[in-house]
């Protein structure tokens, strides 16, 4: 308590000099901040980043260093090798799996975005009868997890003759992506002034023209957010890919890593980690270019 009063006293003395825009940050002393902010923050950051560091490190470590932890400091690598990554890219079907993952993700994202743009526009701007109910149902669809759908879907996929085909994933992934993207795009469309649309309507433009020529160009950030996030979700998807695909050459990276790489070999860790690293890198690189869009996708869909 007394500590607090001291702060207030000094605060009231210096308050006049301080820039008002700094809020109350003048209450924080240097050492106090070091202990209460930087220290816990660094610990959490190290824990969050360590598995990824470990993945990178293992994938470039020679086998001898991997299993002899007393001779070599395990937290570092001497004479890094690209053997694991090379083996992965040139002696396994990994490039094929990477291609499958990319292909499925891109096509499913494009399909979902197409459907979501129309749905979001209809829900926000056409205001047809029952639009609110449909909007609520789409939100509920967002809450239906794949874990309760994969068993009946497996029978449906079989019945449609799509089993073990990338088409199965391309058609099923949009059930995850459309609710999310529609909800996100609705938020963006709402911010576009109605007047723009009214003018165009008076000039005789159709709704389709308005959507393509006026709304979409203004909603580009929303489209980028939705597509980046959708790509990530597809890339990450596991249970559908595990259930609907059976032949080795059709698998996606996450499924292939778990089912094809795991043999009892003591030296497997290098190639496993290389596989995990190469499978993560495209997403991490994409993410690093679009951090802001990514964050707004993540928070936007929740805030609505």
């Amino acid at each position, binding site marked *: 308590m007394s500590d607090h009063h001291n702060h207030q006293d000094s605060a009231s003395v210096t308050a006049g000099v301080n820039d008002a825009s700094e809020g109350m940050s003048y209450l924080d002393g240097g050492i106090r901040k070091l202990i209460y902010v930087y220290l816990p923050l660094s610990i959490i950051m190290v824990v969050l980043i360590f598995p990824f560091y470990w993945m990178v490190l293992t994938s470039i470590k020679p086998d001898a260093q991997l299993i002899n932890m007393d001779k070599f400091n395990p937290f570092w690598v001497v004479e890094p090798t690209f053997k694991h990554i090379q083996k992965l890219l040139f002696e396994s079907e990994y490039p094929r799996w990477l291609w499958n993952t990319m292909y499925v993700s891109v096509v499913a994202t494009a399909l979902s975005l197409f459907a979501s743009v129309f749905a979001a526009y209809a829900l926000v701007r056409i205001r047809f009868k029952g639009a609110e109910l449909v909007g609520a149902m789409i939100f509920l*669809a967002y809450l239906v997890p794949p874990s309760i*759908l994969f068993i009946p879907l497996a029978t449906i996929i079989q019945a449609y003759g799509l089993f073990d085909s990338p088409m199965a994933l391309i058609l099923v992934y*949009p059930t995850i992506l459309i609710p999310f993207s529609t909800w996100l795009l609705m938020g963006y469309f709402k911010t576009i002034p109605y007047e723009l649309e009214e003018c165009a309507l008076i000039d005789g433009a159709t709704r389709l023209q308005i959507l393509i020529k006026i709304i979409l160009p203004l909603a580009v950030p929303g489209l980028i957010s939705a597509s980046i996030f959708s790509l990530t979700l597809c890339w990450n998807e596991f249970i559908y890919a595990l259930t609907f695909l059976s032949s080795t050459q059709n698998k996606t990276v996450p499924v292939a890593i778990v089912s094809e790489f795991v043999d009892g070999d003591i030296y497997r860790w290098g190639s496993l*980690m290389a596989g995990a690293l190469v499978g993560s890198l495209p997403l991490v690189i994409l993410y690093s270019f679009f951090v802001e869009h990514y*964050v707004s996708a993540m928070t936007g869909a929740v805030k609505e």
Partner: protein
Amino acid sequence: MAHDAVGRPQASFQSTERSLMQRLSNDRNWLGAAFMLPAAVILILFLAYPLGKGVWLSFTDAKIGRDGIFIGLENYEWLSDDKIFWLSVFNTLFYTVIASVIKFLVGLYLALLLNEKLPFKSLIRSIVLIPFVVPTVLSAIAFWWIYDSQFSIISWSLKNMGLITENIDFLGSPDNARLSLIFANIWRGVPFIAITLLAGLQTVSPSLYEAATLDGATRWQNFRFVTFPLLTPIIAVVMTFSVLFTFTDFQLVWAMTRGGPVNATHLMATLGYQRAILAGNLGEGAAISTAMIPFLLFAIMVSWFGLQRRKWQQGGSDE
């Protein structure tokens, strides 16, 4: 008169029938339906229909490659006597409750830390999100390696510090395996919670804290009576998502333990997969999936009441 009354609607019918295209583009409801069509087709065929079919399958004895016949509640009766099923229910609840509570506390704490004035703030935020960006299975594989019984880096470090003498068998004994999986789940879930709560924190106006501080509020009181109430609606939504996805988790467990050792880490989703897809008993697996629905509805209801509170707080009716 009577003739007239019949004739008029006919005339207007003919005039609206002029061309389908025109009618589509003029009538709100038709146009709305046309725009909703692509999304509706996909969601009905691959979401609503399977959801219903899953419930139906749970009342049949369907197997892979064979349509089942209706057997009523037999699958459920069978499951109610199945110790492994009840173990998986216990595991799922244990996993969900422990992981969600810790994810919430650590996530909120991290959000508060990130909301401080920091150098390189956006860089720090980007790094925090990396566990969320890396595909879950791939990070699960990294954890698998970190938890390795022979070459675990954690065991090695603790041994070198002299804290333990034997390697820890992270995934080999039931309790260790449960806690190891929970830790990996927390690791993966904290960034999402922290970053969304941070977005909520940033909307709180600093003048509220200034006013509270002038009234003599301590740091804790500032948090308890200003930050927390304003954050409640976002917390409700974020935690609903977190609970839903923790409860229905599959990939983390499947990649690391496949439900073992001795079924100690089987969640309802992994048990459903094992029974339905690997063993081929679609009906029984569907019953396990269907049994998850009441829990999910409960989580959604909780979130719904959280949202109600938001509307009430803002003193308004809608949005």
